[in-house]
């Protein structure tokens, strides 16, 4: 392969953004020319203005902060439990026999279908959102941690035993690193589910947060704020994905499939 020239590298960086930028420009042009009514679809500049206004009053930042906090705490609780149970069931037959069937049964219930029940239990307080996010995040982390531990090469585990590794060493040096690629897959799924769940929950029952902001805007026909909220979701999702990618690259550098080109 040829060494990329600076120009070539610029092109490689710019290429993925070509399409979104073209769409934005076409969109702005269509609205400005009156082809699309801005009651249904605000022009990109209107959205930027809405963002500027919401940012100036501090309303946007408050809502963003509230939503992020909810997402992360739900993720920590659900992901933590899922990871712990995945490890336990991957390492212990007894634990697996005891819990796996139940988990698989609950997993097949769409967690968002519990919203009416959750509102009855917790009202529209923080607990409701935390519960739903934690529940949604739990399954991908659990299933992928378990699968990762299961798929660790038994030949390597045997090698570790023969070479006198203690149980702790066997776990930290063989089992966990071997399960890591699969755990990362679970992490990325979970992050997607985290935002999805939170937005649905906030749209239906909340008095603050990004989803609430979008619902309020709908009440007052503020299309630009609705679109702003949607774009922020997209950005947050992309940010979470990029962070995971960085983490993967750092932790899985040994794997040629993850090494940066």
């Amino acid at each position, binding site marked *: 392969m040829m060494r990329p020239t600076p120009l070539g590298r610029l092109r490689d960086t710019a290429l993925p953004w070509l399409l979104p930028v073209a769409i934005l420009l076409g969109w702005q042009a269509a609205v400005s020319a009156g082809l699309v009514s801005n009651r249904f679809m605000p022009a990109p500049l209107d959205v930027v203005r809405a963002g500027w206004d919401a940012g100036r009053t501090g309303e946007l930042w408050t809502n963003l902060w509230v939503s992020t906090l909810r997402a992360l705490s739900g993720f920590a609780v659900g992901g933590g439990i899922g990871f712990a149970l995945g490890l336990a069931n991957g390492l212990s037959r007894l634990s697996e026999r005891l819990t796996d069937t139940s988990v698989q049964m609950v997993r097949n219930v769409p967690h968002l279908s519990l919203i009416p029940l959750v509102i009855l239990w917790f009202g529209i307080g923080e607990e409701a959102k935390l519960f739903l996010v934690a529940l949604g995040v739990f399954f991908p982390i659990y299933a992928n941690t378990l699968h990762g531990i299961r798929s660790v090469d038994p*030949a*390597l585990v*045997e*090698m570790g035993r*023969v*070479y006198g590794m203690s149980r702790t060493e066997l776990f930290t*040096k063989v089992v966990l690193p071997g399960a890591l690629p699969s755990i990362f897959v679970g992490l990325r799924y979970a992050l997607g589910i985290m935002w999805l769940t939170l937005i649905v929950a906030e749209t239906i029952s909340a008095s603050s947060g990004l989803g609430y902001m979008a619902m309020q805007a709908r009440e007052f026909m503020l299309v630009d704020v609705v679109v702003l909220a949607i774009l922020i979701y997209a950005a947050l999702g992309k940010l979470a994905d990029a962070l995971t990618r960085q983490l993967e690259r750092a932790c899985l550098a*040994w794997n*040629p499939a993850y090494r940066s080109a």
Partner: protein
Amino acid sequence: MLLDALRREAPADPAPETRIADAPPASAPARHPAEAASRGIAVTARDLRKSFDGNTVIEGLDLYLPAGGFTAVVGRSGCGKSTLLRLILGLEVPTGGRIVLEGPETGPRRSDPPKRIMFQEPRLLPWARVVDNVTVGLSGHGSRAERRERALAALAEVGLSDKAGQWPATLSGGQRQRVALARALVGRPGLLALDEPLGALDALTRIGMQDLIERIWLAQGFTALLVTHDVSEAVALADRILVVEAGRIALDVRVDVPRPRRRGDPDLARLEGRILDHLLGAEPNV
């Protein structure tokens, strides 16, 4: 003493013992490293039996491996040679009989030299750098810095000093097996079991590895047990060859050809032919 007694008591070995070459049979020359280093573990197996789900793999096998010797076990695939090795290493539990490993008499029990195995595949940890893969062989010994230093020395011994910081994925097959050899040797083993470790290598790399293993065995004096289906490899390396058939030792041959052995040596070739004849003439066991 006890071992000698056991051996005399043991039922007459059904396998005919043969010697080749003109070397005097009784007094082996001083090439034998056992006296020099005496770090080896002696292995005794008595009436050893192993079956998997009613399928008998090893049947009433008696065996004595003296400390510091280099023994090769050959046989058709499925004859139980790998199972024998795994039993001796303690990787499988025998169905009957017993195995006694005896280390050198000196020193406290805790400092017994370990037993190590080189597998058919390198079995390196893909997420650990080469040098960290070698320190696996020192699990639970010494400080971090000390382990690293010894690992680097072992890597130098197999000629891979410059690869210490690499990921295993970047090495060739032969280099990976050399890392596995360094990992096996770094703990100064008393018994090194080699389970067809060179089977997957190309012919030239294999010969290089054989020379390397022989050189290190001569220098360190551990007991070596090589399981292989390659008779020429067994003949080139071992000073005793056991042919295993249907879970028993069918032939026990001493190789008294002095080292260094030249490839294509007529004595070795004759011996190889004899063992092959035996293997091919034997009733195929499926």
